[in-house]
């Protein structure tokens, strides 16, 4: 008996170990494996937890990098990070008054810019806040304390200095303190400056200030107008000012559209896509929201809408926004659908203390943390990769090819509405309306469901047209015959 017990115990132990091992061998990153929540919002704006789209893949401190045989020391409140067309990564190490250029693997230091040659004089950077590289490889540095944007060529020689914008639309005492900078294919410079609520400042190729761009209009509700009207002057002075919000981050896509993030008070739109004339042409998804988190109730620091601080245009219409409020990264596609959410605040590896900039390097996403002075990278999981690929196929118009990928997404995340919609649309174009209806309903896509349903209905009508028509003919005949019989009977009764 005792032997038997032992045997049972041993087998139980063995099977438990086996279970553990097999559980760990699973490729899908579970929610427990990452130090943050990975979730998405469904049509009804309920949270549904998903597998992780990206998982932490190491972090880099400044002191790990070696340049000329010496450690370059930790980053001090770095504020911006950008990728050059050749793949190098530039970091605006604001507190150390330098720009650090790393290679694409984030392994070696290519160069460190602390000063440049200005007509024979050495000119130093002072608190470089933003940095970016044009298509030609020219480096644009928002040298904030020196109140200028420095333009260097790929050999780090000075091309020009953009400073002291002159315009009638600027206040007399305006001090130009550039924070973030971006350049489009025509070398126009877009600058987000301190206390500049009129919008993004645009400079022509020759450094001339031409005007503001993408101004966010303030809308005051009728109710607020009413209260302002009946308030006295002193009361009005004490009320908060209705000023438009500032832009926080900026990126340019290959077509020359500007992606810019801004802080919203209502959490509806935290990112804009501005066309060359400054109009917002971003597409909003089904719930008309581009503001990050939809459920924004909570306590303390966790209350309130997301605050997008930077945006990166990735490819195929996909862009990611970095929320400094809760440290989350929200990824949208070109139709404004929320693809996945990951990231969080904290002190564990893979979380942020003060995220300020986001960049995509290869298939990794890197985030710059100002407080910790670290670069945190994330690598894509199978789940994230499937979504990226399927969205890319849809962006190119090959929706039918995306079906297999969407099927795999459904295996990983049963409730993914985008996957259901994608499969449904493929069935719709393939002519299988019944299945299309099923999947489009699961994907809560009313528009396409409606189309599928109409075709399905017409198909049924067409296939059974003979039955319907003969039924109608029989009914008419029956009505005629009954009418005659009735008349005859009535006539017979009358005759009697």
């Amino acid at each position, binding site marked *: 008996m005792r032997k038997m017990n032992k045997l049972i115990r041993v087998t139980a132990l063995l099977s438990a170990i086996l279970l553990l091992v097999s559980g760990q061998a699973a490729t899908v990153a579970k929610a427990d494996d990452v130090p943050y929540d990975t979730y998405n919002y469904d049509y*009804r704006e309920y949270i549904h937890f998903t597998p992780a789209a990206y998982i932490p893949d190491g972090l880099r401190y400044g002191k790990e990098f070696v340049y000329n045989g010496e450690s370059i020391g930790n980053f001090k409140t770095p504020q911006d990070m950008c990728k050059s067309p050749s793949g190098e990564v530039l970091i605006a190490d604001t507190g150390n008054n330098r720009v650090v250029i790393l290679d694409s693997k984030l392994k070696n230091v290519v160069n460190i810019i602390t000063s440049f040659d200005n007509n024979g004089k050495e000119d130093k950077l002072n608190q470089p806040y933003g940095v970016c590289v044009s298509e030609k490889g020219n480096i644009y540095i928002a040298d904030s304390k020196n109140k200028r944007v420095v333009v260097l060529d790929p050999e780090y020689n000075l091309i020009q200095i953009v400073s002291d914008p002159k315009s009638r639309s600027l206040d007399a005492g305006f001090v130009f303190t550039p924070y973030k900078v971006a350049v489009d294919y025509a070398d126009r410079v877009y600058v987000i400056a301190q206390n500049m609520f009129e919008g993004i400042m645009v400079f022509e190729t020759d450094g001339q200030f031409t005007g503001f761009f993408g101004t966010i209009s303030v809308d005051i509700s009728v109710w607020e107008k009413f209260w302002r009207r009946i308030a006295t002057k002193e009361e009005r002075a004490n009320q908060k000012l209705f000023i438009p919000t500032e832009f926080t981050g900026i990126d340019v896509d290959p077509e020359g559209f500007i992606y810019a993030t801004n802080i919203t008070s209502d959490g509806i739109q935290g990112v804009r896509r501005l066309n060359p004339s400054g109009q917002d042409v971003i597409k909003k998804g089904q719930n008309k929201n581009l503001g990050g988190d939809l459920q924004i109730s909570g306590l303390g620091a966790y209350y309130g809408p997301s605050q997008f601080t930077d945006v990166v245009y990735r490819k195929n219409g996909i862009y990611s926004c970095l929320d400094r409020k809760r440290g989350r990264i929200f990824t949208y596609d070109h139709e404004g659908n929320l693809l996945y959410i990951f990231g969080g605040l904290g002190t564990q590896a893979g979380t942020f203390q003060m995220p300020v900039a986001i960049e995509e390097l290869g298939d990794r996403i890197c985030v710059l943390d100002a407080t910790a002075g670290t670069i945190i990278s994330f690598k894509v999981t199978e789940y994230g990769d499937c979504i990226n690929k399927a969205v890319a196929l849809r962006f190119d118009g090959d929706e039918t090819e995306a079906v297999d990928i969407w099927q795999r997404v459904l295996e990983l995340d049963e409730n993914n509405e985008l996957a259901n919609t994608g499969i449904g649309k493929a069935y719709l174009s393939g002519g299988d309306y019944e299945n299309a209806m099923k999947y489009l*309903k699961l994907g809560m896509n*009313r528009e396409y*469901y*409606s*189309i599928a*349903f*109409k075709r399905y*209905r017409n198909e049924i009508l067409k296939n059974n047209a003979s039955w319907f028509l003969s039924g109608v003919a029989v009914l008419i005949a029956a009505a005629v015959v009954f009418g005659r019989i009735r008349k005859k009977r009535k006539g017979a009764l009358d005759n009697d």
Partner: protein
Amino acid sequence: MTKAFSKDKWSYLLYTLTHPVDGFYWIRHGDRGSLPIAFILVILFSASFSANRLLAGFVVNDIDPRAVDSLYELLGVIAFYILLCVSNWSVTCLMGGEGRMKDILTAVGYGTMPITIGFIVSTIVSRFVADKEQAFYSIILGVCIAWGVIMIIIGIMQVHNFSVGKTLGTLILTFLAMLIIVFIILLLSNLIGKVYNFIHSVYTEVIFRT
């Protein structure tokens, strides 16, 4: 007096539907209406309301099925019905209305009939509409609801023998009365809760002391 569910009462219901002015007048003055039928109509109204929310086709229906609880909605509809009738009665009593409580209940109950029909028909229709035909659904629903509201107004007008203007005036007062009643109920339940708490704490104190 005829029975509540006699054939005459049922056919008179249909007569009221098509001749509201005449129909409601004789409900008050000729005892042609039936209170039990009115109650059944209200229950049917609530059922059709829930059914519409739950069963209408996906193309027109944006309601989360998890949010539909037909029993809860039945209680809500009945509470609203009684509240409306009680406050209307209390207002019209003071303003020289001729209707008795029974007549008001019957008139409002009969008045829900077109809305019930509208819900049922539009729910069936909604399962066949697609792509840009949603207007049919909303037209059916809108027309039936308008018809129902007009019937309820005519019903109240006729059972009290009011003019149109006076009816609308009393309806506004009725809504005010409803608010007051709700306020008093909330106040009362709050106070009763406090009294109950007091007695309960005295009771626990006594229990623990001994």
